[in-house]
Structures are given as C-alpha cells and as structure tokens.
C-alpha cells in the first residue's frame, strides 16, 4: 500500500485514452486496456467507464522522453511506464514509454501486462516484493489468456477498496515459498547438474553448490510452456529434457524447444487410455525411462525408442508403498519419489525404499 493510503473516494471511475502507439492496432490497444481494467474490477466493486472528451480520472497516454511530469522516460527498455497515485489532475494518470516495443503477445512488452500493473498504481497500490505478484517492479510475461491476478495483489487492492460483490470471493495463485512445509510439486527434473522443481507457473532452481534456491517464472525460460508442467525428465546421454503436459510432450535441448514439438504422448507407445503422465525419471545407467500414471508405471527403452513389454505394472509391486507419484528424479544412483509433502528415497539396487523426508529437504530450510 502507498504511504498516506491514497484512494479514490468513489468506485465508479472514468478513463480516457489520449493517444495510441503506431506499434499496435488501435483495436488491440483498446482491448488490452479494457482487459487490464477488468483485472481490478473483477476483484473489487470498482467500475471503469471510458469517456472520449472531458477530463477523466485515469488519463492514459503514450509519451516520449521528457513529457513534462518531472519523470522523463529513458528510451527503449529500462523504464517501461509509470502512473500516479489517486488524486486530482495528474493523479491516476498512466504514461507509457512510446519507445518500447508494445505488443499483444509474448514478444517485446505485452501492453496488457504493463497496463494492469500501472493501473494498480492508479488505484493506490505500490510495489510488492512478492516475485509472483503483478505489482512486482520488474516486467515478466504471462500469456494474457492464462493470466490470473495473484493473491498478493487481490489482498492489496481489497485492503483499499474492500471485497467484490461476487457470491464467491475471487482467489489467485500464491507464489511458492521454498521452505513452506506444505509445498508440493507438479514435476521435478535434473537439468545439467541442477534440479528444477515445477509448481504452477513457477520453477525453483537448485544448484547443489549454491545454498539459496532461485525462483523463476517458467515463461522466463520457455515462453511457450508458461505453466502446468505435469512431468519432466532429463535424458543425460542426449542432453535433452522432456516436458509433459496433458497428452503432449516437448523435447528441449538446453533452453530451446526442438522443432516439431509438442507431439502426442502416444508417439512414445502409450495406449489411448492414458490421458496424462503424473511423473517420470530416466535411469542413465540402463537407458530405461519410467513413466508413472495413477497406480501403474510403464518402462521405456531410450535406445530402442519403444516401450518395454510386460508393462504397465503396479507401482506398489516394484517400488513399495509410495502412493501416487507427483514427481520423481534420479540423483547419485538413488530415485527420489514425491507424493504430496513426502519424499521417498528409493535404492534401485536394493529395490527398496531407504529413506523418507519432507518434499522440501533439498532447499536447506
């Protein structure tokens, strides 16, 4: 919240678009701004009416370098935009740096994302230090079609304007905290010596030699894979990582998705009855990859590039009581299975569970 708690005295606000950028179709600019306004009206009782002529509460314009508000822009990149806290005159106004590469997609800077952030300021919010929050100071792309206002921002705006009228209060994604004992994972894979833990639209990167854990948006590295990865494994021999989401999979070499992907998982030999993969790991010594689906598992031969015969088998028959597998990876000869907040260490030589830990044991909590 902003010191002094500036806020609009009424809920029905007006906005006006003073000019347009030549880098986008006018209709796309209108749509991006309208969608950005709805981010905030969806979670409060605020309404926004577009006006074309008079002075509006929120005046939106594209501006160049020194535009006489004592806060000159700095050319491409750097500062993208700014806005003023609620108040008369310049209060509430949004200025966008005309020299930025404004777009409606993932290239350049997505106008919807930046606009939604700046409108947070126009309504009285300051910056959040939650790296997953919309009001975090630095830019990060989220597909507008998949965008959901994070809980941190909902809490902030409702602290100023109260809750929405909706029968069910809206909620938003919460940024994973590495040492949250309730943290569970969607998928985990090794990756060139690191371990990457996937959760919603985030990835936590852990390098064995570094104490701290790095939190990133998945889209920072793989814009096309913005969230919801369900299984992943590394084929060390081929320096590839495979990601699974619903009935598709992607192959990545380094940070690049190989052309021709995604492909249907049925290309690997799964029957059509399989709709998604829960977890996977690959044993680099045997070249065998294990896929876990519900209470069964398949084994795939990376060298023959086909499923082994005699599968699927019951997980409990060969791996013991590890329940449904959320995620798995192999490290230093052991297999680590994750089931909710519990982690099992499995010794494939002894063919039995040799340890049980919290799922967050890798984060030096």
């Amino acid at each position, binding site marked *: 919240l*902003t*010191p*002094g708690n*500036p806020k609009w005295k009424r809920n029905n606000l007006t906005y006006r678009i003073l000019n347009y950028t030549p880098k986008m179709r006018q209709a796309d600019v209108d749509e991006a701004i309208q969608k950005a306004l709805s981010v905030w009206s969806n979670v409060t009782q605020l309404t926004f009416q577009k006006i074309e002529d008079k002075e509006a509460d929120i005046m939106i314009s594209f501006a160049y370098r020194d535009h006489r508000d004592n*806060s000159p*822009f700095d050319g491409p*990149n*750097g*500062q*993208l*935009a*700014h*806005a*003023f*806290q609620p*108040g008369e005159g310049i209060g509430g106004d949004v200025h966008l*740096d005309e020299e930025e590469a404004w777009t409606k997609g993932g290239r350049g*800077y997505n106008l919807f994302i*930046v606009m939604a*952030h*700046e409108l947070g*300021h126009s309504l009285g919010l*300051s*910056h959040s*230090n939650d*790296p997953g929050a919309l009001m975090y*100071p*630095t*830019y990060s792309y989220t597909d507008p079609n998949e965008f959901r206002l994070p809980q941190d921002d909902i809490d902030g705006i409702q602290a100023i304007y109260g809750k929405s009228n909706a029968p069910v209060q809206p909620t938003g994604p919460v940024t994973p905290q590495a040492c949250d004992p309730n943290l569970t994972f969607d998928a985990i894979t090794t990756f060139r010596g690191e371990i990457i833990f996937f959760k919603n639209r985030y990835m936590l990167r852990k390098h064995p030699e570094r104490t*701290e854990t790095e939190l990133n948006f998945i889209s920072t590295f793989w814009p096309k894979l913005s969230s919801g990865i369900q299984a992943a494994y590394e084929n060390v021999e081929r320096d590839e990582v495979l990601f699974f989401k619903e009935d598709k999979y992607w192959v990545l070499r380094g940070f690049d998705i190989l052309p021709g992907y995604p492909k249907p998982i049925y290309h690997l030999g799964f029957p059509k009855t399989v709709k998604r993969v829960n977890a996977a790991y690959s044993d680099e010594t045997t070249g065998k990859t294990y896929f876990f689906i519900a209470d069964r598992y398949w084994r795939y031969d990376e060298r023959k590039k086909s499923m082994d015969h005699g599968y699927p088998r019951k997980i409990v028959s060969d791996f013991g009581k590890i329940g449904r597998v959320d995620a798995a990876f192999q490290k230093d000869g052991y297999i680590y299975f994750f089931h909710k907040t519990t982690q099992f260490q499995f010794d494939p030589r002894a063919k039995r569970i040799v340890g049980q830990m919290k799922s967050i044991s890798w984060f030096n909590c």
Partner: protein
Amino acid sequence: FPVAPEAEDEGQTLQLVESYLQNFYNLQRDHQPHLRKHSENPLVAKLKEMQEFFGLQVTGKPDLDTLEMMKKPRCGIPDIGQYM
C-alpha cells in the same frame, strides 16, 4: 591516459547503480558517490535497501545478482514512498 577497462567498468557500474537508486530508492542527487568508502554512506545504505526489497543478499556492494536485477526492464515508479 586511456581509462583502464576495469576503471571504465567501475565508472559505468557506479553510474548504473547511482541512477537506479536515485530513480527508485530516493537517493539524493547531491550525495558524494563512493562505492568503497568504509563509513556507511547514503549510496551503500540505499543499495542495501534495494537488495533487501528484492530478497537479494544484502551486501551493500553491486554484486552480479544486484546488477542483473538493476538491468531488468521495469516500472518507473519508485519501490519505496509515494509517487506524487
């Protein structure tokens, strides 16, 4: 004399750090810039404030993670205080 590369780098680094802290952490523009001076000068104090905000290691020095964060495209509004 031609500026030695590291000295030039240091000059650029100091400039980047200084303008970032002036823009977003209300560092006064008339302070004397010394990254090395031992007593806690305003620039080091503001640098620590920025590192604290972003959850970086609070070193008071322009380390790699800090400089990387400063180079990220962002909103022009300060991270602290009002934005009248």
